[in-house]
Structures are given as C-alpha cells and as structure tokens.
C-alpha cells in the first residue's frame, strides 16, 4: 500500500532489541550525523524535510530547534514527550514497545542538533511494557557506547533519564510536563517565555514527541527531500502513524502518507464500518479535535487540510462512530474526561469544564432545558483561547462541534427527555 517507515520493523521478532536494530542498519544515520554534520547542518536538513511536530501541534521541528539560543551558558535539555494521553491515540506506545532504538537514535540526532547533553524521557505512567522496553533499550545503547560520556566514541556526551508520569493527561502539554519533571504539580507554564528559551529548570529546552524523533533516522538515512515527498503534501514531511479505533472492522495502528483521506483510512485500511453499518461521525485527531460528519470524510489527513476543514490533525487518533452512537452520550464522555483532567489553574477552564459536564450529564439523564444548548455553546466559547494552555480549547471544541453538527439529536433529547437510539440498539 505505502512504503512503511515508522512501522517497518514492528512485525519483526525481537524488533525492540539492539541486535536486530543494528542488523537493520540501525544507528548508522546518527553516527553519520555526529561524524560528518554540524548542528546547524542538522537543523537545516530537518527544516528541509518538512518534519512537523507529531504530538499534535504540527509545528515545524527544524524551526522549533532553531529557537534554542546558541549563545548561552546554561545547559540545554531535550525532553521527549512520551506521555501519550490523548484518548484514541496509541502510536507512541507502539514505537516505544516495538522500535525503541529508532526513538533513541532520533534522540541522539536531536540532542546533537540543539547541543543537549541530557535528555529526559517522560513516559506515561500507565505504559508498563513500553517503559520496560525503552529502559532496556537505553541500557543496551549505553552498553554499546551509543549513549553515555562519548557517543560513538566522539566528544559528545548524552545522558538519558527516564521519568514515569503519574497519570495526569495535562502532563502531556509540554510545559505542564516540564513542571511535572521539575517536581511540581503538573501546571502548564505561562508563555512567554517559551521552553526553547526558558524551559526545564529555567534552561533552554526542546520538547519533542516520540514519533517526531522516530522520523529523524529516516530523514538522515534517506535524505530530507525523499522524506518530504513521502507525505504527499507540500507543507509536511513523512508518513504518520494513525491510531484507528471505534466502530470499524479492523481497529489498529496504520502508517500512511499524510495525504491519505479519512475515507481511505476507514474503508481501505480499517476495513470499513463494523457490520456494514452506516458511518455517523469521525473524530480525526484525538478526542480534542472537532468532530466530522459522514459527509466530511474525503479530507486529506494532513495538518493544513484538516485545519481548513475546521478541525485538526492532532495526534492522528481517529475515532469512528457508526449510526448507533448517541452524540449526546459521546459528548458526555468527552466532557467527563475534560472535567476530570483540567488542571484547575485558569478560571475559565477550571470552572467551565465542570459546568459543561454537569449540563451534559443533565441532558443525558433526560433533564435538559431548551436554553441548555445556548449555555453550552456560550460557555465553550468563553473558555476557548482564554487560558494558559490549549486544554480549554480542546475541551470547548467537542462541545461546539457535536452540538453544531448534530443539533437535532441534542434537541430531541431535550424535548423527549430520552435517546431515540435506545430503541435501535435495544438498550
């Protein structure tokens, strides 16, 4: 179907061990980078590759790296965001479990590019096997001299520290992650200053997602131009790992070019909607992304196209809902999540997420009032763009998109006090 890059080794036996990785020409790209390129050349090459942050924001990686001040006496840090918490997303888990050395090789390249000698890897607390596999991989790499005081025998030191998260979704937000790493409560930090200038322990810090780093090996093995064309879109590079879940025949992780359409992902990759049912709605990029209706799935899955479609590529966690799905209940699940996970720092988010969840809970229970939908939309609007981090936006978007796109269903709930789909699914 496509050339596999990130998931090429996932099916191989012992793909997580250094021996198999070396057999597959592993660590050659990083060695080549450290031996022949200057950090500036590395950043320039990554910029040419059109690699964008695959944690969800899609910010150009080379540009982000270039914000790190070169004239500084402070240490610089590379922080790996492996706190994959976006509901519907499980790509980093596969990378850590099945190809951890690819991630470490990416870490070597990134750390060399920004001049970091210490890398913190913040792994989601629930990720047991990924943590064990990654820890073993770091130990193996250290034994081979790929990590430590002299990486590849060269005068470049890199220490990798693994930190296990404690279960808060917000710690996947890069500055909350830094607060958590510093030993504080996981509160996102006020920006400016941005982490590249003043991040972990007030030092210049680059936070990159696992998948972003996993792309680096390919960029330097096959060249930036080759990587850039892989996506099939002009402003992004590479493939993406799409996590497909929900009402589909073959849920799972699929690698595809970013130009792939949502329809292709659902019908060609995932075998279509389960039991031949009607498609009702799709969340394209993790639970925060605005929902798309069945009519809106001919959109390419790259950052720019999805933004134009009024939603976002996000973490590429695709959640498919068929005709049996009650959108009020679906929204209830989303609002429950956001009310539970709001860090509570900024007033609009702290109070708004709880308020919204209470109203939606009332709707589900059949006690909706006609004015509730306007209150929900207004409250979501008052949260959006008004807080330190984008959590409030993420909490507002489902509310806005579900109600706008499935308004009749919400109104029916309010008018009848019950769900019309209950009869359909025999609940």
């Amino acid at each position: 179907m496509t050339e596999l890059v990130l998931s090429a080794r996932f099916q191989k036996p012992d793909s997580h061990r250094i021996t198999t990785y070396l057999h597959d020409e592993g660590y050659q790209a990083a060695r080549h980078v450290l031996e022949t390129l200057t950090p500036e050349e590395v950043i320039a090459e990554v910029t040419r590759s059109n690699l964008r942050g695959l944690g969800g924001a899609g910010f150009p990686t080379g540009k982000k790296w270039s914000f790190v001040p070169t004239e500084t006496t402070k240490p610089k840090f590379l922080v790996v965001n492996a706190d994959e918490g976006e509901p519907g997303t499980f790509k980093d888990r596969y990378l850590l479990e099945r190809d951890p050395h690819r991630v470490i090789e990416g870490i070597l390249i990134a750390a060399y590019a920004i001049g970091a000698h210490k890398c913190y890897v913040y792994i989601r607390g629930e990720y047991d096997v990924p943590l064990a596999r990654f820890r073993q991989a770091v130990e193996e790499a250290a034994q081979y001299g790929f990590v430590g005081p002299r990486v590849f025998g060269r005068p470049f030191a890199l220490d990798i520290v693994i930190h296990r998260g404690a279960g808060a979704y917000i710690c996947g937000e890069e500055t909350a992650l830094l607060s958590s790493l510093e030993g504080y409560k996981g509160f996102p930090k006020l920006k400016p200053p941005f982490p590249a200038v003043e991040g972990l322990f007030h030092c210049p810090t680059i936070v990159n997602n696992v998948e972003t780093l996993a792309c680096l090996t390919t960029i330097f093995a096959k060249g930036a131009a080759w990587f850039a064309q892989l996506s099939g879109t002009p402003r992004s590079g590479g493939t993406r790992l799409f996590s497909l879940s929900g009402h589909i025949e073959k849920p799972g992780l699929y690698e595809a070019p970013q130009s792939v359409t949502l329809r292709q992902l659902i019908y060609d990759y995932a075998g279509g909607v389960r039991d031949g049912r009607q498609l009702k709605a799709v969340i394209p990029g993790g639970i925060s992304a605005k929902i798309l209706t069945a009519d809106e799935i001919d959109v390419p899955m790259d950052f720019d196209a999805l933004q134009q479609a009024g939603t976002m590529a996000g973490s590429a966690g695709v959640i498919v809902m068929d005709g049996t799905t009650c959108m009020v209940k679906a929204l209830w699940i989303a609002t429950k999540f956001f009310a539970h996970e709001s860090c509570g720092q900024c007033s609009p988010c702290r109070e708004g997420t709880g308020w919204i969840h209470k109203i939606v809970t009332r709707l589900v229970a059949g006690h909706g009032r006609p004015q509730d939908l306007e209150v929900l939309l207004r409250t979501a609007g008052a949260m959006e763009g008004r807080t330190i981090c984008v959590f409030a936006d993420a909490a507002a978007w489902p509310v806005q998109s579900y109600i706008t796109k499935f308004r009749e269903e919400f109104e029916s709930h309010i008018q009848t006090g019950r769900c019309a789909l209950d009869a359909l699914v025999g609940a």
Partner: protein
Amino acid sequence: MPTITIDDTPYQVPDGATVLQACQMARVRVPYYCYHPGLSIAGNCRICLVEIDGNAKLQISCNTRVTDGMNVRTTTHKVQQGQREVLEFLLVNHPLDCPVCDQAGECELQNYYLEFGAYDPKFNEAKVHKPKAVPISQKIMLDAERCILCSRCVRFCDEITKTGELAIFNRGDHAEIGIHPQKTLDENQYAGNVVDVCPVGALTDRDFRFQCRVWYLGTQDSICPGCAQGCNIQVHYNKEREWRPHIADGRRIMRLRPRYNAEVNQWWMCDAGRYGFRFVDEQRLLRPRLRAGGELKEIDWSQAIHLATESLHARLAQGHREGIAIIASTHLTNEDLFLVKRLFCDTLQVPLVTADLPLVPGDHDAFLIKADKSPNTRGAQALGLMGAAGQLTGEQILRRIQQGRWRLLWVFGHDLSARCDEALVRHVVANTDLVIFQGPNHHRFAEAAHLVLPSTTFVEKDGTLTNWQGRVQRIRPVVPPLGESRGEWDVLQAIGQSLGLTTDFQTSEQVFSSLAEQVPAFRDLSYQTIGRQGALLHTR
C-alpha cells in the same frame, strides 16, 4: 521609554513594564485577581483581559510586556464580554455567602461584579462543595469554597517567606488551597500577609473577623512601633461607632495592615507587629497617680505637674543636680525625645540623661524583623541621648545610683525590672527619694514608682520615629487618648515652663520644625518632606 496607546490616549511607559502596569500608571482600570506587584506573575485568573492590535485573541495584560507603538483597548465590547465571562466562571461555584462573609465590603469579587460583571447568571447546576471555616493557623481561617485559586497566598509562602506551607491540591473544579502535610502556618512569622493578599473571603484573619464590618473602618497611615524596622502600616479603627467596652472585646483598633514602602517593608509586615497592638487598650495607665502611705492614689494633672515641677525645682535649688537621673526611652517619638533633651540637658543641665538600655531579647531575621524591638533608637542617637562618647548607659546610671542616696529618678516607659537586674532596680527604687514613671502601660516598675504620669500610645499621638536606616517616618493620632493620658512632650513642656524652658509648642509639627533647626541630623526635614514614605536623616 516606549510609547503606547491605551484607549486612544498615548502614554510613555518604562521599558519592561507590563500592559497591566502601564494601565495602572495611566489610571485606566483593569480588573485583576492573581496579579500582585510583590509576587511572580501567575496569569491564572484570566480577568485582566485587554485587546491589543495585531492579536486576534484577548490578551492578559499582566503577562504582556509593552512594546513601542502598541495599541491597547480596555473598554471594547469584546473586552467587557471577556471580563464578564471570567467573572461568571469565578462565581459559578462560589457560595455567594456575602451576608455572612467577613470580606464583604473589601471583596474584589463584589467590587468587580458591580464594576465589570453585572451579567445575567446562567448557572443552573449544583455547586461544588469544599471545606469551610477551616482554622489553618492560630490566626487564619480558610474557606475553600470562596477561594478563586488565584494562588497569591501560595506564591507568598513560596517566594517571600520561602517556607512553602501552602499549595493547591486536587484538580479541576475540585482544586483547593491547603497546607502541606506536616507543615503549619503557625511557625511562619509573616503568615498574616496571606490574608492581605487574598482578594476574596477565602483567607480571613481570626483576630479581626466578625469584629467590625469593613465599611465602618476608618484608616490612618502610621508606623509599626514593634521594632526598629518601622514598617509602614495603616491603622484600621471603627470610625462609625462610639467605643463601648462590649464591642469587639473593648478594642478600639481593629487591625493593622502593611502599607507599601519600597525602602522599608514593601507590601508586608510581620505577625508580631500585626497582632502586637493590644497594648493600646490593655493594661493602660489612665490617670496620674501619687504614692501616699504605700498606695498609689489618683491625682489630677495639675497636681501631678505641680509636684514634678516642685520636686525638680527643690533639688536643683539645693544643688542636687548630680543626684538626678533621667532614663528616656527609644519608644518615644523624636518630638518627645527633643523635649527630654531641651528640658533636662539644655535647660536644667542634668548630667545623667540617657535612652540607652539593654535590648529586650527577641528574635530577628534577614527580612523585616529586627532584634532591636524599639522603633526610635536611631532618633535617640541622632538627638545625642545615647551612644555619644563617654555617655553612661541606663544600667551604668543605675549602678551609680546604687552607690548612695539618690534624689530623683525619672523613667520613661520602661519596665526597668524586666530590662535590668531586678535586685538592682529594687535597690535603686528603695534608695531614691522620688521615682517618677511616665509611660502608657502598667507593669512592675510603674507599680513601684512614686509618681506615675500616664502617656499616650502610638495610635493616640502625632510625631515621628526614626527607623534603623535613619528614615524619619510619621505616626498620627487615630483615636483619642485613653483616660487622661497625655503625650510626653506636652507634659514635659508644661513642667519645664516654670523652670526656665522657653518653648511654647502647640503642635508636634512645631516641635519637629524646632528640632530640625537645632539638630543637624534632622536638618531640612519637615512633616511635608517626610510625607507618607519618610525621609532619611543626614549622616555627618
């Protein structure tokens, strides 16, 4: 200096200022909760919204630095709407218990609701409940439901005292302020400041709450007399109701609050000073008293002044100038000390006059708390009443008195038995013909004296105190003198007038201007130049 436009008016503002600070300088009202000039910027309350050209979104003014040419709007519909929405968020889980909340009247939720809010509330759900009336220290009560989680109190403990007792626990709308396990605010000597920084009724002062509704409070600028730091304060008193013994436990002063002075105490004061004002109402000497037949009997002021004058006159006439000792106090104002100097040193030529006594033992730190617990040591030094070459200290004077029969000992304020060797003091009192005590409060030494002259306290007198830095700062009368107590300089002048003292001051300001003429360290100072922030003595 960048020029920025706020609501169509251009202003020059300092480099590095935030938009909120620029608005404050321009006297443009922007609401805020989490911002505090003495603390780091948290940016979490989200109400200080403004519109800045070039930004699609509203910006928080507290974390936006000014840039040249910036165009800021604070009153557009979008801004007003944003502020209203934030206020509504802050109030959805607020108990709205203003009628029983002690903060009512000085609550920024109330104030901003009236000024920026006034929305039509849409909240129809059950509120989140949190702990109420939790005594988190001897002095502080927490109501977590009223808290808006601005984190000012947390930042105070983290950044100012660096003791970190407080934190925000839990997440989302269940987040609440609390004390870390195994920590206590009782050991934080500045804990009272968290009540001041709290913009709502979440942290209230157990010493003050329910004593007086804040709209009855009158305010007067003053100086804390608790140590040599001279923290600038406001004295809050009940201005509306006549004093009655049963109201607020008979206290006339409701609370002290720190007042900003960049050079002295910034925005803060210590708890010892904050809660150390009860002496103005308790154990006060109310009328002059004379020992007769082993007991102190009340007499009136004219008798008292006559007695003091006569006894001084008689001893001087008999040539017993050497048998007189005056122990002044570093708790007296510069004006009082000036009269001590004018009367005893200059007019009567008494050789043994000092304000030098051993320090009362007490703790001190590197922030505001000074080991010297008296507020005017530098003033006494500048007036030559202590520390001059060859000058005897109070204790040396007492030892000299011990050598023989003494004629007259005049002590201001001190409980000598607490500050010097008690047996020595007892011996001195027993071997002195006349012991005059002039001060505000009862204590063992006041009880042992022969003639007692009641004085006013810092909330009843006008004058100046000189802090450890040499900063002359003004105290002002807040309440009338209790009983018949009188200020020291006034009494000394009345006594001195028939002994050759030539002054005839009507106000402490007149005393001070004469002092400024005669004492080089106070040269050019006046109540005008001292103002609200004080003025430094001249050194050399």
